[in-house]
């Protein structure tokens, strides 16, 4: 009976011990993915910013500028692309809507971002765009991969439509979370005018005809939860200038926008709460279950060996036939 029990315990010990690495290195990579129907908003603010007045073509100080950023999963589009790509794909429709202190639109930049649901690597498909222009993204955008590493990543800058490294700067604690600090610098780069501008009659095309150019530079910082790869905080030191042409004057420039854009505190709080709930699920597959299974497997193995040792008589070889009943002496 003990022998049978020890064999059953051994089977369970191997079962749980094998489950540990299988869960961590096989199942996790296939199960952890961004859902295609994600919907998220975040509000960023730039206080005491400088903004161009397109009516007078002069820059002015404004008390506050808000950037409302929405991400919305397009399930139909992702299903369609998944069929041809043969893998899990997420399509995010994103909108960065910039609102002035008077509540009126300053500019808006829509984006369509298509990426692998597991690795967050970009997927190139029809519809990938920034402000209506087709683009071919390289690197990540908005979110880091699950189990983010302490290294530099390639990050896509939607304003300049270029990919540049975003550097790992260190680890710190933010609202009780251990986060990785990443920083990217985009040097002064010529960028297209936004398609939608706040003044009627002024369009990107009409501005371009004057020979005036738009230039942009930014230093962006993200604090990223390394478990989920989700940024919990972001800020940008952002500058845009209009240079030259008949509108500004040869060799002259006007600040179109300058400000330190930071996440609104209530959105920081809600983002941290969301990430804290999601990271438990990831930790379950990468840490809690694998270590738990391994521990359980070892305990069961020890129990099985103990039972086996107790079941054996000293000097009896393994698998020896049980003693036949002896006839009673007369």
């Amino acid at each position, binding site marked *: 009976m003990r022998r049978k029990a020890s*064999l*059953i315990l*051994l*089977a*369970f*010990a*191997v*079962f*749980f011990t*094998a*489950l540990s690495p*299988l*869960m961590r290195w*096989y*199942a996790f990579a*296939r*199960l*952890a*993915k961004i*859902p*295609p*129907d*994600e*919907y998220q*908003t975040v*509000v960023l603010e730039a206080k005491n910013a400088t903004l161009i007045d397109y009516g007078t073509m002069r820059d002015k100080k404004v008390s506050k500028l*808000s950037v*409302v950023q*929405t991400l*919305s*999963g*397009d*399930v*139909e589009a992702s299903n369609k692309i998944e069929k041809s790509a043969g893998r899990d794909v997420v399509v995010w*429709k*994103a*909108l960065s*809507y910039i*609102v002035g202190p008077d*509540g009126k*639109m300053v500019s*808006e930049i*829509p984006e369509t971002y298509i990426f692998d649901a597991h690795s967050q690597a970009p997927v190139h498909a029809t519809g990938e765009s920034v402000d209506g222009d087709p683009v071919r993204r390289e690197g990540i955008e908005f979110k880091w991969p699950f189990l983010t590493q302490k290294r530099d990543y390639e990050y896509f800058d939607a304003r300049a439509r270029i990919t540049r490294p975003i550097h790992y700067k260190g680890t710190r604690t933010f609202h009780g979370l251990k986060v990785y600090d990443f920083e990217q610098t985009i040097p002064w780069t010529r960028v297209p005018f936004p398609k939608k501008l706040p003044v009627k009659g002024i369009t990107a095309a009409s501005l371009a005809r004057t020979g005036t150019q738009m230039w942009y530079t930014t230093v962006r910082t993200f604090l990223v939860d390394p478990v989920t790869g989700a940024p919990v905080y972001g800020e940008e030191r952002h500058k845009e200038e209009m240079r030259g042409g008949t509108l500004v004057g040869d060799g002259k420039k006007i600040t179109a926008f300058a400000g330190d854009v930071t996440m609104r505190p*209530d*959105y920081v*709080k*809600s*983002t941290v709460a969301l990430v804290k709930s999601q990271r438990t699920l990831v930790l379950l597959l990468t840490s809690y279950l694998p270590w738990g299974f391994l521990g359980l497997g070892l305990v069961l193995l020890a129990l099985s060996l103990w039972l086996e040792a107790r079941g054996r008589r000293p000097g009896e070889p393994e*698998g020896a036939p049980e003693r036949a009943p002896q006839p009673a002496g007369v």
Partner: protein
Amino acid sequence: MRALIAAAAGLAAALALVLTITAVGAPAGGKAPPKPLLTTVPEHP
């Protein structure tokens, strides 16, 4: 020999379970969220 068979059974069961779970996969997402892309500043998250 019986110990080997028991260990193999445990290993096979673990492989079968993990392969089944990953084949079924994570629950698929539903329809596209009905909420619009925002063009006003929300009061709160």
